[in-house]
């Protein structure tokens, strides 16, 4: 019985972490059709910012939840203004530019921090479920995921900024004709996407380690999740994360981690074959 409860927490945690790492990419790709191959590096930067801030005495919570997103968000805006801005509509060129950017960020972080960086350990201790112990931090990550996704929903649905963003996404020319400034919207969107990635990286830093090349582990999975989810940002990411996370964890628990990874990838293939426009191409089409 406790084992089932434990497994349920593991599954929800897998879904939550997958959603967290993908939502930043979903916003950037969903809004601007920019394939950001440096997404993993934004996550990595978030982790480093959290470490540096904690090292300077900032409380770990503020470092993770405030400082990291803000700093990475600013970096995102800078990147957008200097590089991405010239490449809208040219998906292929953004791939090359962001690949170069990812190499650059990895090289820069290695030069500044070296390869061995002290990390931060997970706060919040552990608690008991029946005969098993599990980490309280897991629940924190799940909570953060809920808050973040809920916050995005609220912003998109009920604020003016969200309305403008959705409008620009649907038809940039029309939005421009109505007085919106698309370049400004894009800059803000890219910044927000980067900030969310930074937040995810910082929140996951205590449980996954931070080193310059950790981005590689995240990029493929978040891509597959975002595109498997389809056009709608929020519903797509959530539904795809739910599907992939569940299958991954159950397969890992039942067999081996290798098979868990392969199961996730195979599910993605089957999913896209059955639903060529992603999940939200067919279901939840009116979703955000």
């Amino acid at each position: 019985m406790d084992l089932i409860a434990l497994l349920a927490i593991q599954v929800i945690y897998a879904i939550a972490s997958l959603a967290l790492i993908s939502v930043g990419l979903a916003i950037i790709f969903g809004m601007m059709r920019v394939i950001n191959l440096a997404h993993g590096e934004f996550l990595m930067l978030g982790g480093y910012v959290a470490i540096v801030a904690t090292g300077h005495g900032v409380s770990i919570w503020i470092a993770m939840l405030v400082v990291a997103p803000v700093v990475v968000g600013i970096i995102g805006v800078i990147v957008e203004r200097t590089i991405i801005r010239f490449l809208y509509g040219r998906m292929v060129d953004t791939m090359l530019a962001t690949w170069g950017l990812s190499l650059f960020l990895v090289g820069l972080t290695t030069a500044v921090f070296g390869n061995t960086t002290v990390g931060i350990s997970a706060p919040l201790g552990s608690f008991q479920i029946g005969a098993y112990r599990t980490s309280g931090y897991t629940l924190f990550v799940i909570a953060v995921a809920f808050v973040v996704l809920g916050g995005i929903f609220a912003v998109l649905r009920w604020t003016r900024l969200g309305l403008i963003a959705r409008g620009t996404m649907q038809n940039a020319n029309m939005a421009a004709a109505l007085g919106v400034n698309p370049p400004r919207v894009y800059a803000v969107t890219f910044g927000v996407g980067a900030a969310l990635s930074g937040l995810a990286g910082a929140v996951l830093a205590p449980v996954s380690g931070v080193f310059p090349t950790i981005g590689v582990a995240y990029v493929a999975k978040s891509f597959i999740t975002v595109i498997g989810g389809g056009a709608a940002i929020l519903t797509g990411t959530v539904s795809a994360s739910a599907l992939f996370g569940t299958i991954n964890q159950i397969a890992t628990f039942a067999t081996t981690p290798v098979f868990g990874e392969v199961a996730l990838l195979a599910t993605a293939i089957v999913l896209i074959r059955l639903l060529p426009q992603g999940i939200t191409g067919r279901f939840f089409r009116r979703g955000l």
Partner: protein
Amino acid sequence: MRVNRRKFLQGTAAAAAVGAFSGNAWADDPIGVASIHDLSGGLDIYGKPMVDALTLAVEEANAAGGLLGRQIKLINYDTQSNMQLYTQFAQQAALKDKVAVVHGGITSASREVIRPVLDRFKTLYFYNTQYEGGVCDRDQFDTGVTPAQTVEKLVPYAMKKWGKKVYVIAADYNYGQITSQWVKKYVTENGGEVASIDFFPLDVTNFGSTISKIQAAKPDFVWSALVGGAHISFYRQWAAAGMRKSIPMASTTFAVGNEHIVLSPEECNGMLVCYNYFQDLKNKTNETFVAAFHKRFGEDYPNVTELAMGTYQGFRLWAEGVKKAGSVDRMKVIEALETGISIDAPSGKVTIDPPTHHCILDVHIAEVNDKKLNVLEDFAQQKPSDTAAVCDLIKNPNDNQQYVIKI
């Protein structure tokens, strides 16, 4: 094209090497030593300390007057964690730079890539990383520890301390798989039981279900053969789940990538590891070495790793071989080394074992404590018995392969 490239590279190297090299290293026919390691990409946590140790070794040798009256020139290749570049750089080192020896390769995969290339172009090769054992090649010398030297000692020690039921978690590639087989062998030999062996791809960061499975199995201790940056997350998640205090851990891969410094004390105190070298070893040679190392690379250098020391010892052994042979000719140096050359290294006495071309060295068991490794027990002069079971280069000098040792 050739000339321009060389000029470009020399110009860059010269411009950036201000103060990094002692002045007259380039004059009158230096001896070339090539270093082929990953300095970027995922494996750079291992590669960088190795190259630093090699740099120090070369500079020390040059400061002492060089080898055979000639200066030594270190040529550094960064393979960027890319197998194709390993082949290309090995070819370049052998054919263009015509070096006297290559020190390189981190994973067994990279070693197996450059070994045939260097064999074909008749260049001496030193592989300085701990690995699964079994390489039998007269052109190659291995200075890293093999499972028979470390695992064989740590398993009974841990079992005596903690209990007989072991849960093994390993990285899902050759080294992890073979090490786990050795662990199983020694556990069973000592009357214990292996609850399960789980393998993890090198980029897995979510170990939640594994931690649950380990708890369900209730082992006396966990043996970890996890490798690489992503696997550090296991130790974090393990500690976050409060497991560190209830189930102890032993490992022969932990701390090679400075995991004990990256993690906090609460996350890894009490772990047992077994290696040839620890920075805190108390002997005169080591203290001199560490002082020189810190002077060269800074007092805040995180840790001199086992692999770095392997590289340092590899260079020193080669230098002794050259001195004994009186030349850098490959065959002469090999024959000189095969007389069983010995050096007094920071890790203790290191001797080349002629039939296997591996090394007889001291191993120590240490415990992780507040980001340091405290040596608990010493085992002097361990022979590479696993490779010796399959390889005898004195009887079969033309042998040239990696054997899979039957466990």
